């Protein structure tokens, strides 16, 4: 029987890919008139160890599989690690971050990113982490599926329904909530960074992820709100001043985009596969979409492949 995967974000595309890779019959139902998937606004950091600062061990342990998964499926996975720094007066934040995480080394940031030389005395380097461009990765997954004959269509789902619609599934998932995130994309030719850099700050933490051609993604706020709509002036101000603190070259950057999305999240902020009467939900990626969607997708594909073997 065919598997209808609902959604067009990272969860849906990973699920469709994993199911297809197991030889299962798959189609993707693109919801009509849905808001842009939250994953379009993601940082694209594959950083399980950094996320361990606030995420539970499960995310750190399982998320490590994400780097290889992405590298096996799409081009453009950059394995340059993550650098974490803090302004001089907030170095205690760096100590805390080191205590809360593992698989890092103390480094002189300028040795890794010459542009930061002299600006930060110490930093933490997570060498096994990676990053990608979320929009390119999503487009690559889609064309990979399409080139193998998987159809993308609108309309009613059929067969086995795998529901990956994020917050749009809220009517079926009562404990799903939105956590608002705001981000910017800038063009900053004066700044040369090769890997994601996280700037710790007690009130305005931010991360900067390099994209191609001198572009950078600056993110992201975390607000317990399901409000849609544009980036607030406050969020833009906080993110930009954090970026400026990291490197003054960001002051001259051209702002290409301001974006806001709602991260679908369960109360424990851990993604889940849930079985309902007529469908399987894969949802609640929170801020771990690119890290955890492949993990959930592979788990789902294993379950379904086994189920079908037994059914046959």
């Amino acid at each position, binding site marked *: 029987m065919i598997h209808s995967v609902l959604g067009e974000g990272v969860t849906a595309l990973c699920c469709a890919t994993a199911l297809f890779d197991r030889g299962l019959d798959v189609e993707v139902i693109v919801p009509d008139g849905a808001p842009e998937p939250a994953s379009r606004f993601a940082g694209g950091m594959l950083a399980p160890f950094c996320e361990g600062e606030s995420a539970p061990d499960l995310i750190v342990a399982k998320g490590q599989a994400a780097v290889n998964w992405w590298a096996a499926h799409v081009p453009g996975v950059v394995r340059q690690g993550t650098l974490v720094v803090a302004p001089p007066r907030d170095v205690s934040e760096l100590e805390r971050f080191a205590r*809360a995480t593992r698989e890092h080394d103390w480094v002189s940031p300028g040795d890794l990113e010459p542009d930061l030389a002299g600006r930060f005395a110490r930093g933490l380097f997570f060498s096994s982490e990676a990053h990608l461009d979320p929009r390119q990765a999503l487009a690559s997954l889609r064309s990979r599926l399409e080139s193998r004959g998987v159809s993308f269509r609108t309309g009613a789902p059929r067969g086995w329904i795998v529901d990956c619609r994020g917050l749009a599934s809220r009517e079926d998932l009562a404990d799903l909530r939105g956590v608002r995130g705001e981000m910017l994309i800038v063009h900053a030719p004066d700044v040369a960074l090769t890997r994601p850099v996280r700037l710790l700050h007690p009130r305005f933490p931010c991360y900067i992820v390099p994209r191609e051609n001198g572009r950078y993604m600056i993110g992201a706020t975390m607000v*317990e709100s399901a409000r849609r709509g544009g980036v607030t002036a406050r969020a833009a101000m906080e993110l930009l001043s954090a970026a400026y603190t990291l490197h003054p070259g960001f002051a001259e950057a051209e702002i290409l985009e301001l974006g806001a999305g709602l991260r679908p999240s369960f109360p424990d*902020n851990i993604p889940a596969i849930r079985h309902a009467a007529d469908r399987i939900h894969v949802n609640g990626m929170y801020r771990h979409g690119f890290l955890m969607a492949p993990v959930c997708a592979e788990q789902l594909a294993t379950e379904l492949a086994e189920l079908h073997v037994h059914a046959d």
Partner: protein
Amino acid sequence: MFYGVDLTSRLMLGTAQYPSPQVLLEAIEASGAEVITVSLRREGAAGGAFRDLLAKSRCRLLPNTAGCHTVREAVTTARMAREVFGTSWIKLEVIGHADTLQPDPFALVEAARVLCAEGFDVFPYTTEDLIVGEKLLEAGCKVLMPWGAPIGSGQGLRNLAGLRTMRAHFPDVPLVVDAGIGAPSQAAQAMELGFDAVLLNTAVAKAIDPVGMARAFGRAIQAGREGHQAGLMPERDMASASTPVFGLAELA
């Protein structure tokens, strides 16, 4: 007694910055807190899902006006909070300085006057300044919440002498040390000084193990309060042997 409400636990817990709502609920449970603060300014009306989760804690909610910098903002936020949360309790914060987040005492007194007149039970976040405290009482507040140190700084009781004086000056007013507490020992110290409660957030939310830290704070506050009630011994300049010298063995 806080506006007619007696509390068993003297810990009031903030609800921001936790790894997840689930961890927050577990921390509240472990701490034994019966009052939790909740903000409205940034989340706005669309933060309903998070507030529904907080309702599961069965704690009394103390909405705050965190992030407000003017009388008007604070008053508007307080009115909205009363509607959203269905309580007349409001923790009144009017921030005067973006970097230190210290309260603006002038705007605070003005906002307190407006809100008390509208029937709010106001918990004003203030400094240890006695005159500001008196003006707040005169405006209608029946609780005062002096800071220990700037919000989120974890510096503990930065002006110990000032806080002692404040306790002595307002013997019958419930006083809550709010903000700046970083360690359970600091919270215990506030309780030993005779303060009626401690309000904190970051020290628990940003601990490596928030649930464990919440439990530690709950116990420290209990210990500090019991110590105060039992009567602390005075400090002395000289040693005073705790074992009597009578009955020592005579070693030939």
